[in-house]
């Protein structure tokens, strides 16, 4: 993360006074940056109180927060424990991983012992404090004053004063604004403005023709510029007067087509545009502003680029986050850096040799990153036959966890009964080749962990992967089998809740065991069944098991580690995320960023809108909730298109096919609004199988598949349907989808949406109709050839 993170030091003051009957505890909080902090302290019994700190005074421009706790000294209380919580972020501050502890009366000997221990910490305090500056973990180190200690020893109850420093690392979200305007006299002015703290150097070049190639502009260069290897300039930006960032103004000739740049923060930290250079086109004569200027003030003659709005929003979010996202370059750098450390640690500490090595490795990693970005963007110059091929390379270059390659076809590889035999993994293994030849690219396997319920959705010890579906070894073997036929494997990750191993003192099951032995702080506070000591849930509660409090740092850290472990150990390529309604999508984004899945899809399932028992035509609110969740994950995950399933139910059941087209003539589900993130399905282990919570209209399944397998989005086919008499028909639809290269962003044109028939053309390659009504595609632009047909559906291919 390097300098993208900055730490704030916070000092704590704990004077306390005593008189005959009362102790007054005064806790003062000195903050460099003002934020609200609550104090959470625990008396030595089993409960805790949360008390907000009050802002009391301002010393030298720094806010001071305090809380005064009056305490009756006649009570036999040994000590007061507390931890601090930052209200805004939910971050906890502890003392070396434990509670802060203020020893009170009646416990003098023990306390003296503690003190001696504490003194020993202070020996290496100084250097530790500096080192920990960049640690992401919130850590609190104590500063101790010899004098104070002795005071405590001697005076005991009279005065207690201790100072701790709290270190807090923060993700910073910064932006860079580039504004271009005409500077008269054949000149253009390019203005860079950023709030990235510290020194920022722009490593830039210009493009003199349409080839986006780094070239030097003609002199004179802006002040404090140096030439980098005759092909780029490095210009240090000037700090702004108010210290909130820096700026630079470059004057360029009118002929220049564009400006390429990356940011350099220091030797190790380069910021780029998701693996490629930032590029500001200066053509179209006048001026242009794009990239990450979410809120740039409009200059005269300013225009901004408009793309597909939804995707663009997405990109803007991405761009703003470039700065705290792990960048490609950074990854390479850190990968190689670890290596360097390994090598050099073996080599001893000779600084010189290390430097020589490291400078070469740095050079290598920079070159590799550059080569990578060019290879990714360059499309080879081939003659006509190869157009298809280069198309395909483009596709594979575009993999993201929200969409996979964009051409995925998902198979749900189990049903509600799959646990019954105890050897599902072994039973599925012989079907691997068959599933591959049917054309699936991704399989979703059942939840792998030890679970209170045999189906796996009540996980207990997350690191125990022996379940009713088989052993961990069998699972790994199965995953290998799928990989051999190039099918990616999704693990079913239940992150919302987790079943406890032990009861607490009140007999409540809320203490976890196993590798992740969390206590009740890992459980959300607002479910009375489980008496969690965490924060309030960031989503809906699932009442059958303790809901995990994802706002806790230690929980998130453990879950990230777990997901990465699953990726590495089992070989999972991605996730199906269970019950994501239960917690904030931002946390999901966090987990996906850490575990870097090839594909991820969340189950956000709530009810559609009904009025007087009849489904409403407009289900925008329903799909908006799903889209809000996807947005919260930053688009890193797709979501099951529950809306589409619901609308299909009514349309097919009641013969109301007009429901499939929304008011704007688009598909009425999530797939109509954000197709690339919609995972369309008609049935799963909950809705169908032996549970049948919301079963798809019986006998009309093939209409459902004719719809989802021809439409954009990523279709998911349910196990029970694959291995049924529908197999032939499903197989045919999949092969048509693949043959026609229909993908998650394909264009759909609804040509008919009436009472008894719905028809659409997709990418002008496939026409489909479902419903009993008559329909034939118009053969004005294409000749349509019947490609498949079945009960109340028909497919045509353009010839």
């Amino acid at each position, binding site marked *: 993360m390097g300098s993208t993170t900055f730490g704030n030091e916070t000092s704590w003051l704990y004077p306390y006074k005593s008189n005959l009957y009362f102790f007054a505890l005064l806790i003062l909080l000195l903050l460099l940056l003002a934020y609200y902090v609550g104090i959470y302290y625990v008396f030595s019994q089993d409960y805790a109180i949360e008390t907000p700190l009050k802002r009391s005074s301002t010393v030298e421009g720094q806010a001071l927060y305090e809380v005064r706790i009056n305490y009756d000294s006649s009570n036999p209380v040994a000590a007061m424990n507390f931890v601090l919580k930052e209200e805004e972020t939910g971050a906890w501050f502890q003392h070396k991983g434990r509670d802060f502890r203020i020893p009170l009366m009646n416990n003098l000997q023990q306390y003296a012992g503690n003190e001696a221990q504490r003194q020993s910490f202070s020996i290496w305090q100084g250097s530790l404090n500096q080192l920990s500056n960049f640690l992401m973990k919130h850590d609190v180190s104590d500063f101790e004053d010899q004098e104070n200690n002795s005071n405590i020893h001697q005076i005991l109850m009279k005065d207690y004063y201790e100072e701790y420093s709290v270190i807090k690392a923060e993700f910073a979200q910064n932006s860079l604004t580039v504004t271009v305007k005409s500077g008269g006299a054949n000149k253009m002015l390019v203005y860079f403005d950023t709030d990235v703290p510290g020194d920022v150097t722009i490593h830039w070049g210009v493009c003199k023709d349409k080839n986006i190639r780094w070239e030097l502009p003609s002199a004179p260069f802006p002040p404090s510029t140096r030439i980098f*290897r005759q092909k780029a300039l490095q210009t240090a930006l000037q700090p702004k007067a108010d210290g909130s960032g820096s700026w630079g103004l470059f004057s360029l000739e009118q002929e220049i087509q564009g400006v390429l740049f990356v940011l350099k923060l220091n030797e190790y930290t380069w910021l780029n545009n998701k693996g490629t250079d930032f590029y500001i086109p200066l053509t179209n004569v006048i001026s242009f502003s794009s990239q990450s200027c979410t809120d740039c003030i409009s200059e005269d003659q300013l225009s901004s680029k408009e793309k597909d709005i939804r995707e663009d929003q997405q990109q803007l979010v991405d761009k703003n986050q470039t700065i705290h996202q792990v960048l490609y370059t950074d990854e390479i750098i850190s990968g190689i850096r670890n290596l360097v450390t390994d090598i050099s640690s073996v080599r001893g500490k000779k600084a010189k*040799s290390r430097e*020589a090595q490291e400078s070469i490795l740095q050079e290598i990693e920079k070159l*590799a990153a550059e*080569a990578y970005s060019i290879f990714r963007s360059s499309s080879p110059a081939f*003659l006509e036959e190869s157009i298809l091929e280069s198309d395909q390379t483009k596709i594979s270059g575009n993999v993201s966890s929200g969409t996979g390659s964009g051409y995925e076809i998902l198979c749900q590889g189990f049903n509600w009964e799959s646990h019954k035999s105890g050897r599902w993994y072994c039973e599925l293994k012989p079907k*691997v080749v068959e599933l591959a030849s049917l054309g699936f690219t991704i399989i979703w396997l059942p939840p792998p962990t030890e679970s209170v319920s045999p189906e796996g959705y009540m996980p207990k010890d997350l690191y125990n992967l022996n379940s009713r579906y088989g052993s961990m070894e069998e699972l790994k073997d199965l995953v290998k089998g799928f990989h051999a036929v190039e099918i990616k494997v999704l693990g079913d990750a239940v992150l919302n809740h987790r079943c406890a191993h032990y009861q607490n003192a009140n007999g409540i099951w809320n203490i976890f065991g196993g590798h992740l032995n969390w206590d009740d702080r890992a459980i959300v506070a607002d479910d009375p069944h489980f008496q969690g000591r965490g924060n309030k849930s960031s989503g809906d509660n699932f009442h059958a098991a303790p809901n995990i409090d994802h706002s806790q740092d230690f929980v998130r850290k453990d879950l990230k580690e777990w997901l990465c472990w699953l990726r590495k150990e089992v070989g999972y390529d991605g996730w199906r995320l269970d019950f994501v309604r239960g917690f904030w999508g931002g946390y999901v984004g966090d987990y996906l960023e850490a575990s870097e899945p090839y594909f991820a899809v969340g189950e956000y399932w709530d009810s559609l809108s009904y009025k007087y028992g009849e489904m409403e035509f407009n289900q925008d609110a329903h799909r908006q909730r799903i889209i809000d969740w996807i947005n919260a994950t930053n688009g890193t995950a797709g979501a099951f298109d529950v809306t589409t399933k619901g609308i299909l139910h009514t349309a097919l059941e009641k013969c109301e096919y007009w429901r499939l087209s929304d008011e704007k003539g688009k598909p009425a589900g999530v797939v109509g609004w954000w197709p690339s993130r919609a995972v369309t399905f008609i049935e799963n282990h909950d809705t169908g199988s032996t549970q049948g919570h919301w079963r798809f209209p019986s006998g009309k399944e093939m209409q459902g598949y004719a719809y989802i397998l021809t439409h954009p989005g990523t279709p998911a086919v349910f196990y029970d349907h694959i291995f049924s008499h529908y197999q032939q028909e499903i197989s045919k639809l999949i092969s048509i989808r693949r043959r026609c290269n229909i993908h998650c962003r394909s264009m759909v044109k609804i040509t008919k949406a009436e009472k008894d028939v719905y028809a659409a053309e997709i990418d002008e390659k496939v026409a489909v109709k479902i419903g009993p009504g008559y329909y034939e595609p118009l053969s004005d632009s294409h000749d349509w050839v019947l490609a498949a047909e079945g009960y109340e559906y028909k497919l045509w291919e353009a010839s």
Partner: protein
Amino acid sequence: MEFATAFRHAGVAAPELIPARSWAAIGGGSCGRRAGRSLIVLNPTRDAWVRRAVPAVRSVIAAEKLTPSASKGAGTGPVQLFVGLPLDAVSNCNTINHARAIAIGLRALKLLGVDGVELPVWWGIVQPDLSTSGAGNWSSYLALAGLVLEAGLRLRVSLNLHSSETPAIPLPRWISRIIEANPDILCAGRSGLRCRDCLSFAVDELPVLDGRTPIKVYEDFFLSFRSAFSELFGNTVTDISVGLGPNGELRYPSSQQLAGRRRPDAIGEFQCYDKYMLADLKKHAEESGNPLWGLGGPHDAPEYNQAPDSSGFFRENGGSWQTPYGDFFLSWYSEQLLLHGDRLLSVASKVFDDLPVRLSAKVPLLHYWHRSRSRPAELISGFYNTEGRDGYEAIANMFSRNSVTMIVPGLDLADGDERQELLSSPELLLSQIMTACKRHRVRVSGENSLLSRDGFYRIKKHLLSENSQVESYTHQRMGAHFFSPEHFPLFTEFVRSFALPELDADDMVSDEERKMTLPNHAASGNDREMQAV
């Protein structure tokens, strides 16, 4: 040797400085095969050690000018590392693709300490049209070779005589025109489907190409290459690899990718159904006294999209492959492949004989079904290698006769990763090929098959193993994935750790030595490198 250069530059005074017992540990497997030479062993090992100690430095300062070292017969240096350039480095309209990315990539590889790169050259791109002089358009390839020379790397040139689907690189246009007129010069399976990858092996010595034989045409192509690259042999071009069939490998194009999806367990069809192959088969059958056997290929072999056990020929027990007919057919079929390889390699040997380059050719690693008795994937590709019959003996013998290095792919594959239901065993097959090569003293050059994460560990195991015969290794191949954050750090680690097998703290040179092995050359070399751009 370039390492000697590095050694001088590095300034290690005498081998005695390094504790002798460290050789065993440092040298690891790569020294092992040189054991038995006791004292003299120290020299190459010492070079190797310097290489290990300062791989990156070596790359900067070492081969300032490459010595024409790798002539034929030279040989027991440490394993040479190559990286394949993109298959489409030169496009099918004869222009350089990704020139900038390749130039940058070459510099990264050089700094990393890689020895060289492999350049795939396509017949169809160089000689798209028939010219009487036999000349071709080598300009793009020469330009690429120039980049390689500039980067200070070595070049292994692969002369590909086949066509490729991905990327799409066809056979020369003039060959395609002849094919239109006489499709029988292409291999064909029983279903009549013709494979456009390469010409039928049966026409090698028939004047089917406007009066010339394919072998003659290949020879002209080799000569054209030789004259175009004449100035680069020895110093830049140190290896030439000759494509012997589809995918550049010695095999029949039996399992060509068909349009549409293909069953993963299908193996393809016997490629003996073009007119010329059938004629040869007929003649051979008549000579052996069973004219009826020469009327066609096995009637009970599977079709393209069928599993091998779907019909009688490959049945594990009592399949036709075990009958006298089966033996007759398979012997003939594999013999044709062997003859084809021999013809091409003799011509190549003749053309390149006096050059200071090594000649190599690639065999496939047909590991599917290797655990079965009939090994259908190998049989159908022309390797008569069943339970109880070693088909690689004859192949190794043929390579040995022509003094050609055998390129073996799949060093990264492991049995555990393969599909058990396909009875695959890359490891057993590799060891069988290696054994045959050892027996016939054939040099081996390794390649990977996939760019997988786990592969590196296995490759390293092969290269550093006690009795490894692998003298060079080519990592396939450069491209976006190669430089991606998922792959490149692993590759870096691979190259470096390969150069630096886990050292014990005990085996470390002392600080003084390190000062000597890592002199200021490193820094100055680096500066120069940076200014040069």
